[in-house]
């Protein structure tokens, strides 16, 4: 029987700290457990790491907690969008949670992550809170970007999270730039530049990879291959959908992205590699249950059987659940109770976010520049609305 103890909020990941009630399902037990990944890694121009991953009860339970929270958050966002409280774009990550939690387990907040627009869970993984997420999605002033960014523009620079980008593929050169700066500053940290199978064909990606390889930048390009670029299946978009091989001269690793431990192992391996030898590509074989965004039902280009099949066979939370149960770290009931708690936590955060005010009108004109030095800016009718930029 596992040791379940009441823990203060300090030992929990920051985003869980918003609930003041005592937490269950945590442990300080760090007895090593060795688990085999579901599949072996496949390497391109590199010897892949071992399938045996070291983990601990503490880590496994934290994986479960974090992924359950992410899953619940995204499903709640779906409802909020349908209730028209979230506007514009909303790209949901449910199904892909293992990539975020596995990566976080392998790295520190001094390493940088940059991704595209499917960024809510990455933000959470980097230490963002539920309130900041929901408030931003609903365009309120307590959002992580004060309501001025929206779903696609979450940032948390103090934890090395550089967004949140709307232009497909742009985040990859930006990520290589972060790696350039890390090397320039001699920081001994790495950058994970995440992109999808749709973005994998972008020219600027190859331009950035070329320079990263020439200059030995500590850049790790992570392709979250969920097999569909919006409505286009990978085999219709890429002559070679073996994205881990597309780096040509750059080594690559194909990883089961639904297995958080495999993701962790791969990211750890990649970080060591990148610090010594320059860029490496990780292809995470993953899946999104939702469509591309909330305006896409996600069922016109794939079958419902495919979706439910993945949910049945490869769901990342179910995998961790099985491990927890097989190692007697918790009971089925405890896990279910926890999921109920998560639901409650998410509902509370949403309720709180709904109470938040919209940004003040004066915020229209803030942050245009970091240093505005008294420059004037205008509203739609400049005789009616002008402001001096701070």
């Amino acid at each position, binding site marked *: 029987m596992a040791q379940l103890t009441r823990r203060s909020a300090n030992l929990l990941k920051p985003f869980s700290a918003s609930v003041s009630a005592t937490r269950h399902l945590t442990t300080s037990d760090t007895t090593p457990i060795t688990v085999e990944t579901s599949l072996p890694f496949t390497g391109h121009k590199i010897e892949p790491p071992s399938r045996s991953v070291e983990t601990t009860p503490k880590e496994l339970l934290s994986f479960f907690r974090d992924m359950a929270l992410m899953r619940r958050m995204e499903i709640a966002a779906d409802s909020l969008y349908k209730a028209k409280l979230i506007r514009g774009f909303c790209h949901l990550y449910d199904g892909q949670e293992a990539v975020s939690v596995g990566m976080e387990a392998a790295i520190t907040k001094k390493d940088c992550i940059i991704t595209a627009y499917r960024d809510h869970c990455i933000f959470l993984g980097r230490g963002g809170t539920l309130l900041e997420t929901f408030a931003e999605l609903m365009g309120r002033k307590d959002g992580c970007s004060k309501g001025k960014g929206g779903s696609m523009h979450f940032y948390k620079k103090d934890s090395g999270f550089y*967004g949140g980008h709307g232009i497909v593929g742009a985040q990859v*050169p930006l990520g290589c730039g972060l790696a350039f*700066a890390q090397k320039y500053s001699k920081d001994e940290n790495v950058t994970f530049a995440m992109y999808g199978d749709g973005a994998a064909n972008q020219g600027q990606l190859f331009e950035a990879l070329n*320079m990263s390889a020439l200059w030995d930048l500590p850049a790790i390009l992570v392709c979250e291959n969920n097999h569909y670029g919006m409505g286009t299946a990978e085999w219709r978009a890429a002559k070679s959908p073996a994205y881990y091989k597309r780096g040509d001269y750059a080594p690559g690793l194909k990883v089961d992205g639904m297995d958080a431990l495999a993701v962790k192992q791969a990211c750890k391996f990649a970080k060591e590699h990148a610090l010594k030898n320059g860029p490496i590509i990780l292809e995470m074989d993953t899946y999104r249950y939702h469509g591309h965004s909330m305006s896409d039902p996600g069922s016109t280009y794939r079958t419902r059987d495919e979706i439910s099949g993945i949910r049945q066979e490869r769901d990342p939370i179910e995998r961790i659940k099985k491990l927890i149960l097989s190692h007697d770290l918790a009971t089925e009931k405890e896990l279910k109770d926890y999921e109920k708690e998560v639901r409650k936590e998410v509902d509370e955060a949403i309720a709180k976010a709904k109470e938040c005010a919209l940004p003040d009108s004066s915020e229209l004109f803030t942050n245009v520049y970091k240093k505005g030095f008294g420059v004037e800016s205008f509203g739609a009718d400049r005789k009616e609305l002008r402001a001096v930029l701070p």
Partner: protein
Amino acid sequence: MWGIIRQRAACKGNHASNLEQGIRAIALRTFSSSAKQMTVRDALNSALDEEMSADPKVFIMGEEVGEYQGAYKISKGLLDKYGPDRVVDTPITEAGFAGIGVGAAYYGLRPVIEFMTFNFSMQAIDHIINSAAKSNYMSAGQISVPIVFRGPNGAAAGVGAQHSQCYAAWYGAIPGLKVLAPYSSEDARGLLKAAIRDPDPVVFLENELLYGESFPISDEVLDSSFSLPIGKAKIEREGKDVTITAFSKMVGYALQAADILAKEGINAEVINLRTIRPLDRSTINSSVRKTNRLVTVEEGFPQHGVGAEICATVVEDSFEYLDAPVERIAGADVPMPYAANLERMAVPQVEDIVRAAKRACYRSH
């Protein structure tokens, strides 16, 4: 005589090194004052050198900036002085290296990204606008981007349609960007230093034909702490009959036009914009309120150009002061032709500015 020397230098472009030495020799003999001379090229080079020396976070990146000493020799000597980590030669991949530069700026470095000409910036324009200009706003101040994009802008001589476009109007439209356009060596030094020190993304529009041109320069300008304020235009020549606004190479043409107009009794005030964004509306309007007439001059395409914005701002803020319609001199509304006679017709000439100023003064030629 000085005007003729300047115009000859302007036509020779970057083959001016011998000519430039010759000009300097003539100028030094001609002027008895102790004013030093400096080419725009040397002004830019010295500004880069001093800012790199002062702040280890400043680095240069672009095609041929290092071993080649710069396509136009603007970064000459900097590789030897600062090493390949800070003077970085790139492959011919603008989208890639502009993105890398912006990412480095996100992290806190201060990149100076060179486009061999701004025509090639179109390959990277998404990074300039969406990754750089808008980030501080979208992140509500979390991610600022202290980057400079610099390089030659506008027409050179005989380089044809794809290598001659002026980008001042396009970049000048974007909130979040600062857009500078130096004319003289003092402008080049002061504005480049200000740009590198500025915490926001700056588009720095140089001019290839000005690189070899020499200008007098004071000790104050030569001091390493010198910089010019962003957003402030300079009155190059005071006048009372008509205001002529210009930027970059056209400032020289406007000054020549003013000399010609003076002989005909028209006293023109020439404003060197120095900054395209934020536009110094206050200086422009004050001048028009004094002269009551306005001619805008630019090299770029006329539609939605810088002159259009200046005209709108004057009509909005100083309508009652205008005694004549605003005149616009701009590049011809055609892609740049190659043949010398057609090219001459496609770019504003001094006589175009003179004619427009006379029209604004209701004088026929």
